């Protein structure tokens, strides 16, 4: 493996009640988060292909971990998202290299499909910085009930020379969706949008 992983954290949230109303079945979302060494910390490097390859490895690893944490088969996942936080000796572009070129394909392979863009966020920060991982339906980005976000953070990461990489997966949308828009039963699933 090209990535030097210091630690992996998985987080599962299960919401059973929202505003005194039972959520049945409970909504569940999981994030798998890796803390890796930033091979380009502290210097300007033009060719980021090593980080691009690391992104591909992490897409497979983290999507697998998240789905396992939910205890479901990949195709049962409904929405997804990704995010990265670069330690202070790195560049935002390092997060971009991990997230955008190659991370998505292995995630989609784990989930069976995934026609929609994987929503993402990134930032630079110190240990304990919070990442809000945006979530959207994996087959149709316009499904309004599945627009959501999941906050993740790790107290001791990223150190200055590290990068935190997160992949979030759900088996559901928000707890009591009622703001209209495209519903999941109406998905055509052709263009990744509707």
């Amino acid at each position: 493996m090209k990535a030097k992983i210091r630690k992996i954290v998985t987080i599962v949230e299960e919401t059973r009640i929202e505003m005194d109303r039972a959520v049945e079945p409970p909504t569940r979302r999981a994030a798998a988060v890796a803390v890796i060494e930033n091979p380009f910390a502290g210097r300007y490097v033009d060719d980021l292909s090593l980080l691009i390859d690391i992104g591909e490895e992490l897409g497979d690893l983290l999507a697998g971990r998240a789905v396992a944490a939910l205890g479901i088969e990949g195709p049962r996942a409904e929405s997804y998202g990704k995010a990265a936080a670069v330690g202070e000796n790195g560049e935002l572009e390092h997060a971009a290299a991990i997230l955008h070129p190659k991370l998505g394909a292995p995630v989609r392979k784990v989930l069976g499909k995934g026609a929609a863009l994987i929503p993402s966020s990134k930032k630079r920060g110190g240990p304990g910085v919070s990442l809000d991982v945006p979530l959207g339906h994996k087959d149709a980005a316009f499904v309004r009930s599945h627009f959501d976000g999941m906050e993740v953070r790790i107290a001791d990461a990223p150190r200055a020379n590290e990068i935190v990489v997160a992949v979030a997966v759900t088996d559901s949308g928000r707890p009591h969706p009622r703001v209209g828009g495209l519903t999941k039963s109406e998905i055509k699933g052709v263009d990744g949008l509707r």
Partner: protein
Amino acid sequence: MPSVELRKRVTIVEEIFHEGGPIATIPYRRAAILAIIRNPFAGRYVEDIVGFSDDLKPLGLEMATALIAALGGDPRAIQGYGKGAIVGAAGEIEHGALWHVPGGYAMREALGGAMAIVPSAKKVAGPGARLDVPITHINASYVRSHFDAIEVGVADAPRADEMLLALAMTTGARVHNRAGGLEASEIKGLDGLR
């Protein structure tokens, strides 16, 4: 006594491969499970609260069992533990103290017996507050290699009328432990201390 209303459950598993030193042959794992429940005493002074401690026992046992499952399912693999509570702003620290008995009882029950006192931390705070849950060896509090802590928190909890209850477990010593003191192999196992 009032019933236990569980709004949300969060599980966090950290798998630590190294911290700058040699890569562990077996990764060190620490995990926490959090339950966000309604605080039945929020907003007013209630003198007689102790019965709620018994009401929390089934929830504690369910949490301890789920936490062991998140760490692989084998109770014999668990070597450290801790517990904690964050009481929402409309409650008292005394409400958090109700977790001492059911939290500790649940872990001992699920682990098939454990001799050491369960270390704990608690506070009154708002949504997103972080709590450092202290962790010590399950059979001998003085085992220095197992002194640890796990930071926990949930972005939207505890609301003012809620409590966040936490249990934590680990599968071994700190990843690069070398600070001396009583070792796990030296435990006498008579008093829960050494």
